[in-house]
């Protein structure tokens, strides 16, 4: 599968590496050249394409090969940029699989109802944190008693 990932932050970079390990052809797009520099999150062993460009610019998307892409993921920090890029991918370039990260739960709901596939980290993280809090402490984790023994 040919995948374009917009946004090379922690999540974008992690996803890029995971997809490449699964044998997919990955292009990562970020508007900041520094995202691909030594302080960026992409490891040196990533062999996919790194491209500087604005994901809400149709020319930049074309340049990144969106016309041949099987999937498009937007994972920048900006909800608005993410949903706009995904809508362009879906409605202008007819990319078959499009997924957008949307932090704001309300915006996520709106765009999901408009037919966009969305992931809302806010709700997912809150739920996971709540579940972790509600769980009994595992016996392996060091409690006050355990500390006395060591």
């Amino acid at each position, binding site marked *: 599968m040919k995948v374009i990932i917009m946004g090379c932050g922690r999540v974008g970079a992690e996803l890029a590496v995971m997809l490449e390990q699964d044998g997919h052809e990955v292009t990562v797009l970020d508007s900041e050249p520094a995202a691909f520099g030594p302080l960026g999150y992409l490891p040196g062993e990533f062999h996919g394409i790194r491209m500087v460009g604005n994901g*809400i*610019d*149709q*020319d930049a998307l074309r340049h990144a090969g969106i016309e041949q892409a099987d999937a498009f993921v937007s994972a920048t920090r*900006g*909800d*608005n*940029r993410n*949903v*706009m890029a995904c*809508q*362009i991918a879906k*409605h*202008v370039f007819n990319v078959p699989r499009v997924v957008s990260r949307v932090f*704001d739960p*309300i*915006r996520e709901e*709106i*765009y999901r*109802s*408009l037919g966009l596939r969305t992931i809302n980290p806010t709700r997912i993280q809150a739920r996971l944190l709540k579940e972790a809090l509600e769980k009994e402490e595992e016996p392996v984790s060091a409690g006050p008693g355990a500390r006395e023994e060591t």
Partner: protein
Amino acid sequence: MYIIVVGAGKVGYYLARELVEEQHEVLVIEQDPAKCASISEELGEIVMQGDGCEASTLEQAGVGRCDMIIAVTGDDEDNLVVCQVARHRFHVPRTVARVNNPKNEEIFRTLGIDTTVSATSVIMAHIEQELPSHPLIPLMTLKGGGLEIVEVKVPAESFVVGKPIRDILLPHQSLISLIIDTEGHPRIPTSETVIHAGDEVVAVTMRESEAALRLALTSSRGMGPPGPS
């Protein structure tokens, strides 16, 4: 009308001022406190500080009863989201977005924004207006139905010069709605109005009839024999 303007840059400021002068109820939403302060100082308490993309901000602004929302920030993605949130969550009847990158106009329309305004396109149209090779200038696209408002400058050699409108054969579903003479005076034509060389004709037409309309008004041979249209 109750109109919400999102973005208090230069466009937002002057727009709000004009709308207030025209007696509309206006609320400007702006994130930057300094811009908010200068608006409230000059135009009164018609500004609210906040993010116009946030549903809660829009709700506080009374978006549910607003007749129109106009998003004029410098970022296309923000303008798009403001309009989509207003439309899909709050059912605002009319959404208008400023488009900074003219290539986004088409996608905004596809995504249901009622009206898009692109300064770049307007300036380009004015440049094209000066070029004889582009005698037809699209002024505005009306949503739905593929209707456009266009402007055509009638050249001296045109077949229609000296003819009353009733004798001009126009393409299907085209209508001459305004004529601006060489001195800049606009008039609403009747069937008796005679076209002069150099007149700027503003017409409503179907997108696919554009080329035929241009030919009808600029060609030295017209569209064919004059007859009832």
